[in-house]
């Protein structure tokens, strides 16, 4: 080996030694630094631990999880759903076709088809947890036939919360649903699901009775909300009927100033001397959103039947019969207003 080659080798050696030392320094130091990762917080918890939805309607529980120091995105999963006796409850995890919204309902839809176009069938568990949000949904397709309602003690389940920071289980959350009550206001007992009265009462009334000349109160009127099965009805209809004390029909036209076109968010109105029928999309109201068809909260459809008459001394007397209601099941429904104590006075004094 010549002197030059030898020197060259030594040189290279020195160069690489120096470089290696620098690289080693840079690399070795970062090895023990903590890595950035997400976190599952010790203080995170479900603020709602007992879920008591009513079957047969979509119930959406939100704001039920306190984030604490957990970082989002995180994943929520229902694990080990079980009946009260500890046996597994596949009915909570089995997949069913459920109707979900894919576009926003706003109350301005012009037809049933337009409303239906905003919904679609998806396959989901009836008791569903938001994958990243922890929100809990009971879909309207849930039925007491599938899911044990109260007075059964219900179900228990655990929720797994996980992200790259680890996982955490929230144990023994409870699901204690109620029997279906397909309409509101309901005449059914919440626990047994059985009717406890014939009908319900209207939300508002200002009508004079014919015989005694007094203003009728809500208890003078029975409202029957019921499913009917009559030929010629498409399956998603809503009919209003009015009965006098003798259960004879009252012509809806007597409620002369009623805004029939916008009474409910229904279409294809058919008005006869005995009833008024609309094609509608159930549930009614479609969502909890204040529209021209609902009460101010938006959670009930609101119907106002009105008429004007001249009262005693020529004063105007504006008659009103109002009902805030909700119907959750599809079907041919009718709402019957029965004047049971006195007949309404439509004529001028």
């Amino acid at each position, binding site marked *: 080996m010549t002197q030059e080659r030898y*020197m060259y080798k030594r*040189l290279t050696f*020195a160069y690489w030694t120096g470089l290696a030392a620098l690289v080693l*320094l840079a690399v070795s130091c970062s090895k023990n*630094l903590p890595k950035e990762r997400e*976190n599952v917080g010790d203080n995170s918890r479900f603020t709602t631990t007992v879920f008591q939805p009513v079957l047969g309607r979509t119930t959406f529980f939100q704001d039920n999880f306190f984030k604490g120091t957990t970082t989002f995105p995180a994943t929520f999963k229902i694990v080990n759903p079980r009946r009260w006796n500890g046996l597994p409850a596949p009915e909570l995890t089995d997949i069913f076709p459920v109707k979900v919204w*894919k576009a926003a309902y706003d109350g301005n839809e012009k037809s049933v088809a337009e409303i239906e176009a905003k919904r679609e069938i998806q396959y989901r568990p009836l008791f569903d947890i938001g994958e990243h949000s922890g929100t809990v949904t009971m879909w309207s397709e849930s039925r007491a036939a599938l899911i044990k309602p109260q007075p059964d003690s219900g179900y228990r389940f655990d929720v797994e919360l996980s992200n790259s920071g680890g996982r955490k289980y929230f144990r023994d959350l409870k699901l204690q649903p109620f029997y279906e009550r397909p309409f509101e206001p309901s005449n059914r007992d919440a626990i047994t699901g059985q009717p406890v009265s014939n009908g319900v009462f209207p939300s508002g009334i200002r009508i004079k009775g014919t015989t005694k000349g007094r203003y009728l109160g809500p208890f003078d009127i029975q409202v029957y909300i019921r499913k009917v099965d009559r030929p010629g009805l498409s399956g998603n209809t809503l009919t209003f009927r009015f009965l006098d004390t003798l259960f004879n029909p009252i012509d809806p036209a007597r409620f002369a100033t009623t805004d029939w076109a916008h009474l409910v968010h229904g279409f294809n109105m058919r008005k006869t001397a005995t009833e008024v029928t609309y094609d509608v999309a159930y549930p009614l109201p479609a*969502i909890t*959103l204040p529209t021209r068809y609902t009460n101010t909260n938006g959670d009930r459809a609101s119907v106002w039947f009105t008429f004007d008459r001249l009262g005693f001394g020529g004063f105007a007397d504006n008659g009103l019969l109002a009902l805030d209601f909700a119907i959750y099941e599809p079907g041919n429904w009718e709402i019957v207003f029965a004047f049971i104590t006195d007949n309404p006075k439509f004529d001028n004094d």
Partner: protein
Amino acid sequence: MHRMLMSINKLYDMRAIVHISLVLLLFAFQTERASAQGTVKVSGTVIDADSQTPMSGVTVSRGKETALNHLGQTDSIGRFTVSVPIGTNLIFSSIGFETVTLKAGNVVDSMRVVMKTKDNPMNQVVVQGLRQTKRELATGSSVTISGKEIQDIPAGNVMSLLQGRVAGVNIQNNTGSPGAMGTINIRGSSSIGVSSDGMLTPTSPLFVIDGVQVDVNSGYQYGYQTGSTGINPVSLIPPEDIESFEFLKDATATSQYGAKATYGVIIITTKRGRSKVPVVGYSANFFMNTPPRLRQVLGGAEERAIRLRTIMDYDTASPERSRQEINLIPYLTDSLNPYYNNSTNWQKYFYGNTFNQTHNISIYGGDRVFSYKTNLNYYKENGIIRNTGFTRYNINMNVTYEPTEKFKMIASLQGGLGTKQNGSGVGLFQTGVASGANASSLLPPPTLFSDNNSVLSSESIRDHNKTSNILSNLVIRYQLLQGLQLQNDLGYGFNSGTSDRFTPSFLNNGSSRAENYNDRNYSLTNRTMLSYVKSFGGEEKAHMVSAYMFNEVSSSGAKANTIFLSQTPDDQVEGPIGANGGNSKGGTTNMTDSRQHGYGGTVEYNYMSKYVLNFGYRLDGTSINGPSRGYTQSPTVSGRWNFGKESWFKNVSWLSYGGIRMGWGRNIRPSGNIFNVYGKYIYGPRYNNDPTVTIDFGNIPSPEFLPEIGSDITGALELGLFQNRVEVSLEPYYRSNDNQIIDIDLNNTNGFSRKATNTGSLVNQGIDWTFTFRIFKPERPLQWTVRLTGNYNKGTLTRLPDGSRELLQGISGSVPVIKRLGRNPISNLLYYTQGVYASTADVPVNPATGKRQQLGIGSGFYFQAGDPRWTDVNGDYIIDEKDLQPIGNPEPLFFGGLLNEFMLNRSLSLSINMAYVYKRDLLNTVTASDLQRYTRPLYFDVSGGGSLTPIDQYNYWKPLNADRSVGTEGAKYPNPFDFRRAGTLDPFRTNQTLFMEDGSYLKIGSIVLGYMVDRNFTQRFGISQLRVTLTANNVYTFSKYSGPNPENVTSLGRDVSGGYPSARSYAAGINVQF
């Protein structure tokens, strides 16, 4: 031994004469042989090879280089006359020049001695710990910058000129306020502390100004590292008087400075006398400051039309409602009334060009036994914002007395006085001006009757701020035995600030306000040091051991008082009597006092200057430590290998020098305050009708409280190639700052609510690099030097209390920050914006509820076309604080600079300095507020609305159909006109990624053109040196950032429109020496 002693003496001489970045290289050449015997009188002239001008003050001595016998010095025109035996070696030496040795021979008169500037970088003197050493022996990281580099540029604060010149030193001139200082961080910010108003706790290095420690981190206001009067102590140092800057970057170099040096040390040394004949120098600069390009705004009718259109189009209620709203605002309707018909250019009232000047006179002289210097400086800068400005008066004197080789004394005294007008702003924020300049052009111009009186307040507030300081330093050195020296350093700094401010009644709803503020702070350090040097190992003295130990006591304290008088009798009487006593108040607002004791030492061994090993140790006790914590240790271990000196490199001609070094060390910084340790006792409830003193239950005392500890490992590779025409320095480093204070909330059963814990840590790792290229050979008339500096730094948060992974901190009036383990220490907590919803149908719908995504839970506020598309991270169809994500890094990933210096014929010079920052996330709140003003068409004053900038420059959403459910695709900004919904939605909120931008920039910092007038010409007028300069500073910034200036932002990277813009300045200067 004798030889050794002399070299040590020489070492200390240099220290005495200042830390000049130059060194002696013995350079000998033969002259013609002389044979005669006897004494001759030798005379001649010494000439500077660079400037070809005579050199005064050159020491002429004889003997061997190791045992010089002083003969005399050259006079003011470079002449010398000595009597020596024939054949004597005459040695000519001067600091910064290579030593010349000539033999006194036949030529005895008009001897011409040419001295060259030394340029071996390895022989530079650098500061390591408490002593100076040659760079080739240095085991720590330090960089020297000559004061000459920046002396031609007038500046209120000299540090602003050093931007980009030192690798690893990040200087951001984030305020243009005259007399203030930007942020300085060495190798990344070292703190995770953020103040409640959104300022990162400053981690400026410790300044050591002529031996006096000046800590600019304490007493800062608004986080901009400025004293409460808005004047930074460093601003009181005249740049013209600075000999050198020394930047100590790692613990190996700084740990011996003890506390406060954790974030690095910057040593500023002023000039010393070194001429036997007194030299009088005068320099002056006349400069013009111009404001940056001002914003374009719509004026008068144009603004009115936009406001009217917005209200009519987007008032959700009804046209009647809109008309009613409009009719209530005469600025919109009553354009026929001259009072309401305006097009006021507000910016013109606030910003303008200013003309300024600075003058400096220096007188110095002396010889080896006694030398002196006096420097007088005056600097006056009027701010580009009305009624602001800074004036500096400074006198700096020092003397060196060395009657024998055994005794030496250096004393220096510096007094500075700065005054400042803040206008309507406070300190650095010009909030009044910022909002005033943003006022609507429809408002009438400023008069006593107009609505907008920020102009008046910026003019009518009587405001006077003054800071004065005294820095004094006394060094006494005595040599006990050969190699054994005793030295005492005493440094005392005193700083006092006062601020008077009077707001007339018409500006403050009829009640005038007088505020008086005064503060003072001091620092006193005394250090006694015993040092010993011994070399041994045969003839060549291969082994050398040096050691020293020291004992240091220091104390510092500060106190601030404020008096506040409300409703003085009238606008002419500012008190003291007649004020409304009920509303007036006063008292001590801040008081600190701390003590520190440290002792330690170092031992260093080197073999043939090839292998160096250094051990250092220091113990510190501070009054802020918890009493049970005792003394804190700061050890260092470092070493160096100059592989270029190995024999196998002997014949390698291209390698001039080469070395690697590595060091580990740690250092402390007292943080927090005494209340953290002992608790705070406050006035309590009365007991038996006697007043009581009780403990403050806000913070629990923590006797375990620790100082902050910085520890680092630094390596380095230093290379000089091709006769030093290429120099390379690479320094990777890893630094951890532990024990940072984090307040944790205590369980409420505790009685106390909070505890200050030492539980925060962060790590900065990265690499500094410096490349220097001398493009042409040294003999060429044109010289071109390129220096490229840079730093890559990555900060990581490594510890939080109680095993937390993240910590959220709100900031009043701004975007909160989040500290997450493993990430960069401070991140913004933001909504992630993915454009704009082009149509309402694009908004996601909750499948369960059938409703569109909404803002906040249960708000009933649904997103629609034209709204920002914020990512719903948790998928609950609600945009709320759960969707905020830590995003962005306000610390730059890369920063550095590029310096180009040209020199032609040693008389004409051109220097261009550039600085860059790459990868830094800024929050552009300026664009945000520009757009926000569009959403407030009903408001004119500064709080609600204001001037409108041209909207066409923004790509914003525009509706395409009547009900505005469909609009432009791919818009960047949401609909700015939907003002009714904007009140809730706040589409231009700053906590979204829409306004997070890359703040990378390349800035042409300064251009200096200098010309040295021919000496033969100037000598006719008795002038030994005349230099004229033309300077432009803060010339241009290249950046993609859409806001005004990517540098003019807070330390958290937020573009605060209340900041003070940086001025561009053009200067003409002259420098004369007699």
